[in-house]
């Protein structure tokens, strides 16, 4: 590889045996050779970098089907999607009312519950179980876990508080819990991703 750079640099060098005549620096041939070598080196770098991107088998697992039937009102389940936890929660009517009663102008990341759910399926709140601060898994999806001051999720790493709609209400996290791309296949099952 050293020779590649040195040939392109050859244009400027005058070896002992070189006659002084001729301005080699601008010699088209050397420039063309050097340019070609540079293009070739760049073409080799692309696959060497791209190999670190997700492989075909990883990409093939990018979407999953989730059955919602086992989730009772007021409860949540944890599923796995792309190697990350998914929280799927069935809200009770009171919880929906609580969430809608919040004045969203006071929120750090203003969103209504309706914006975070699918039309006609407001009771199904599906979010990533990944704190938007530094990626820990918040508590609150399983029975008996600390759900924080706002009754939603509580991240034990740095104390972020999420409300029942998964919106950030306190602590260092900047954003609401992310809602993944999903679609209802039937009233009780969704395809995520």
């Amino acid at each position: 590889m050293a020779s590649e750079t040195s040939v392109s640099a050859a244009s400027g060098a005058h070896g002992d045996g070189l006659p002084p005549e001729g301005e080699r620096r601008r010699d088209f041939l050397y420039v063309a050779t050097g340019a070609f070598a540079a293009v070739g080196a760049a073409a080799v770098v692309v696959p060497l970098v791209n190999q670190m991107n997700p492989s075909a088998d990883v990409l093939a697992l990018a979407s999953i089907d989730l059955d919602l039937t086992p989730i009772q009102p007021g409860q949540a389940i944890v599923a796995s999607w792309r190697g990350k936890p998914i929280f799927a929660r069935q809200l009770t009517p009171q919880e929906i009312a609580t969430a809608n009663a919040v004045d969203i102008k006071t929120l750090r990341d203003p969103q209504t519950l309706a914006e975070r759910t699918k039309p006609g399926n407001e009771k199904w709140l599906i979010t990533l179980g990944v704190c938007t601060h530094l990626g820990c898994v918040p508590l609150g999806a399983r029975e008996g876990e600390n759900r924080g001051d706002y009754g939603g999720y509580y991240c034990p790493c740095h104390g972020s508080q999420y409300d029942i709609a998964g919106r950030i209400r306190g602590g260092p996290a900047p954003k609401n819990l992310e809602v993944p791309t999903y679609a209802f296949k039937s009233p009780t099952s969704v395809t995520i991703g």
Partner: protein
Amino acid sequence: MIRLGALGVGLLFVITLLWGVIQPREAVAPDPVKALHKHPQEIEWTTNGVFGKFDRKQMQRGFQVYKEICSACHSIHRVAFRDLAALGFSAPEIKAIAAGYDIATIDDKTGEPTTRKGLPADKFPLIYPNEIAARAAQNGALPPDLSLITKAREDGPNYVHSLITGYADAPANWKVPDGLYYNPYFRSLNVAMPPPLAADDQITYVDGTKATKDQMARDVATFLTWTAEPKLEARKETGVAAIAFLLILTALGYLSYRKVWADVKRKPAAV
């Protein structure tokens, strides 16, 4: 001193080897397998050559042959259903093909082993869970996984074609053990696999091609060439581009080299 020692060591090795050379050899009976074994017939595959490509229709037919005949005993466990897109199948078709297979999983309530319908991301399931199960079911023989077979046998595609069309009656001087079949293309001549292609039109091709034995053999060999080397087309295309580029770069390099050396090599122009 070193040279004297070397002479001694050298003579020791040479004498030992020459002693080995003059040892009488036991007479070896000519191996009858060698006389009867045949090399696969050479076929002009579409994948041959610098610009070789797969014939999508032929691969689909080959897949049909595999599914309807070979898959009774042979898995293609390294291939995923999603890979079938390379054969020209659409996403819904692949989904339907995958759904036709049962994939081992665990029940997410009880944790018990169970099965579910296949998804495009799954691989073709194994037919036997392990070698012992395969041998138990196959009279002691082990049907190999076919994913890599065309790379795991000398002259792979030709071999597959010749093997499955090459069953013959054993010559008088050759004894075929019970339960085995004579095939001059098989290494030991006695193969446990019954002739898979019994007759023309054993299957009905979806695309209406006449399913002769030779056609089915060619199609399935093409399919298995793909299962073994799915990136064959990308490889050859990249190769053509890379070599074209390198030839130009080398030519430029040669001209630069001559130019750099021009003043050192003041020599007759004729050289």
